[in-house]
């Protein structure tokens, strides 16, 4: 069984493409079911954030599985595979494990070290577990990814300087609004990223928070948390002029704030500058808002350049993190291979033992005056022969994981000795971790 990854991220696709292939968390059940219903795919997890859409899956046929998932992504979002394919990357086996470990450890993030991605993958895995689209391998794989991410965070300083999209947003706001003291923040929607950004703004001196949400009770709850003010979603434009900083991350399928709205709001503010950050994918705020006088709109992509400066320091920590990940890949890949080889080894052993027992019984049954001592010795002798014979093949098979030849050997053994193995059932019993 092989682990494969197919996806796209901020590194390969602009926001225009990412928003087209994003999966809404509320509607994730059907795609998950469709995914594992595919012939080539055994298990599947869908991770969809504003910076990446990735599918983790297991398959027996690497090439077939990857191309099937690519087609699945295109079909599901009703876009042509030709236009999508240029933005997609895919990994399998060891490189897939490395990729997911790196993503979970936030080494592949827009802001290296930002902590949100781990939570997002956990949520994605939660859905997969709930709808049973993940099985033994992906369960184990993602739990491993979480523990690797935790190790990276505790053993390196990668996340300690709190550089994040939220932090970059604050820096940018200061370039427009100057001192942030006395400034008011409006939160539209209730994404985790938005809340985090709002906290950063408050820490940097912003004094008031307004929260607008389609579910008013959620707005109220969040407003309470910030000692702010809840605003009804319908009344958004009656309050927007009071906000200097607008953070939007609703799950709306189309834009909710357009240039005309902002023109009116800005006029009401006597052209005091307004800073908009649109974290949502698909976007909440029309790109033309940026053309309105005194309105400055930034998307998550725009924050990337601001962030570049902080990367130098982080790269140093990142190289330490990569080392940790390499160690962990080795361990996990050995487990994955053993998952493949263990049932074969067990089957091989039992086959040999079966033959040994049958032959021994045949011999003993026709040998009347044998002393019990000799019977024991014969038993021990046959066991020793089997053990000696199986020692080298077992060792080779257990180590074959690193070279990636497990499939070749197990297939050969199954055919040569006519072994019957039930892969899935045996696997769980044999989980071992160093």
């Amino acid at each position, binding site marked *: 069984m092989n682990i494969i990854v197919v996806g796209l991220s901020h590194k390969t696709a602009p926001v225009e493409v990412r928003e087209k292939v994003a999966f809404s968390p509320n509607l994730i059940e059907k795609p998950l079911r469709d995914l594992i219903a595919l012939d080539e795919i055994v298990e599947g997890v869908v991770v969809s954030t504003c910076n990446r859409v990735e599918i983790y899956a297991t398959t027996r046929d690497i090439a077939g599985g990857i191309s099937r998932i690519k087609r699945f992504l295109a079909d599901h979002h009703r876009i042509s595979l030709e236009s999508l394919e240029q933005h997609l990357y895919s990994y399998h086996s060891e490189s897939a494990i490395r990729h997911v470990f790196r993503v979970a450890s936030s080494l592949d993030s827009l802001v290296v070290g930002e902590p949100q991605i781990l939570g997002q993958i956990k949520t994605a895995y939660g859905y997969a577990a709930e709808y049973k689209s993940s099985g033994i391998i992906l369960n184990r794989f993602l739990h491993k990814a979480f523990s690797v991410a935790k190790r990276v965070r505790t053993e390196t300083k990668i996340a300690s300087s709190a550089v994040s999209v939220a932090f970059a947003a604050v820096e940018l706001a*200061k*370039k*427009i*609004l*100057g*001192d942030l003291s006395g400034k008011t923040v409006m939160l539209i929607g209730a994404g985790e990223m938005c809340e985090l950004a709002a906290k950063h703004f408050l820490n940097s001196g912003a004094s008031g928070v307004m929260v607008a949400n389609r579910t008013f009770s959620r707005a109220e709850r969040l407003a309470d948390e910030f000692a702010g003010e809840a605003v009804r979603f319908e009344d958004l434009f009656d309050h927007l002029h009071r906000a200097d900083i607008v953070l939007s991350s609703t799950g709306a399928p189309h834009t909710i704030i357009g240039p005309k709205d902002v023109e009116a709001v800005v006029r009401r*503010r*006597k*052209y*005091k*500058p307004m800073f908009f950050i649109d974290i949502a994918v698909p976007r909440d705020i029309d790109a033309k808002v*940026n*053309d309105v*006088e*005194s309105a*400055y709109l*930034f998307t998550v992509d*725009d924050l990337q*350049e*601001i962030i*570049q*400066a902080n990367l130098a320091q982080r790269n140093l920590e990142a190289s330490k993190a990569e080392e940790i990940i390499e160690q962990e890949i080795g361990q996990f890949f050995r487990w994955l291979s053993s998952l493949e080889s263990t049932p074969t080894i067990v089957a091989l052993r039992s086959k040999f033992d079966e033959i040994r027992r049958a032959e021994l019984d045949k011999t003993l049954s026709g040998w009347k005056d044998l002393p019990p001592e000799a019977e024991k010795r014969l038993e021990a002798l046959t066991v020793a022969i089997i053990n000696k014979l199986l020692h080298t093949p077992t060792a080779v098979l257990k180590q074959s994981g690193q070279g990636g030849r497990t499939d070749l050997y197990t297939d050969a053994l199954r055919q040569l000795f006519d072994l019957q193995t039930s892969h899935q059932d045996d696997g769980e019993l044999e989980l071992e971790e160093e």
Partner: protein
Amino acid sequence: MMIRIFFYCTLALYGGATVAYLAYLFKTTPVLATWAHRLIAAGFVAHLLSTIHLSVLTGQLPITNMHQSLSFFSLTIVGAFIYFERTYKVAILGSFVSPLALLAIIASSALPDEIKHLSPILRSNWFWIHALMAFVSYAAFTITFATSAMYLIQEHFLKKKHFGALFRKLPSLDTMDDISYRCLTIGFPLLTMAIISGAIWSEQTGGGYWNWSDRKQIWSLITWFIYAALLHGRLTTGWRGRRAALLSILGFIVLLITFIGMKHSISW
């Protein structure tokens, strides 16, 4: 000869400061800005000495011909710059102001300097009040011009998402808008008083308070109206940022035309 030494020292120091400030635009080396500031501060001291020396020598403020006036203009610009640079800690302002100061003093050095004694019509206190106020207001408007230009550049970066080295060095839009506004509130009353004191002086010389054939008076009035509109717009309908910056730049161009291009009908 002494006058010349200080004057050429000033010229050299302003030149050095301008080179350093312009280099600072492209290279992010904080030490460049530090040295640029030291050079311009030293230049200012030399300039001040040169001006005082000339005043003592002639017994009057050295603003009686274009050579002297441009030099004095340069002095007030640099003085205002040093004040605002220290108050707001905006080193990059020097990259925009020092070339203007340098240009003014180069133009000054290119013009003939005949120290002549003033004709009796200029021996009025109103003339000195008028001239001094005008120069300080010009300096304030020059700073407004520089911060407005910086504002437009920074706004361009923000709108087009160019986050380069210059973006990092330029201060926040708010800071530049604030400096522009401060300078406007200093420059505008001074310009108003300069025009009024100028009218009184004109009356004293027998030309009447207002002479519609005096192009300098008329252009001064145009300048005044532009800045009055800007101030009014800011206080009432919230003209700020981009609009204010554009109008400030227009105001400054008209001001330069008034200052350099227009001769008084009163000849002396």
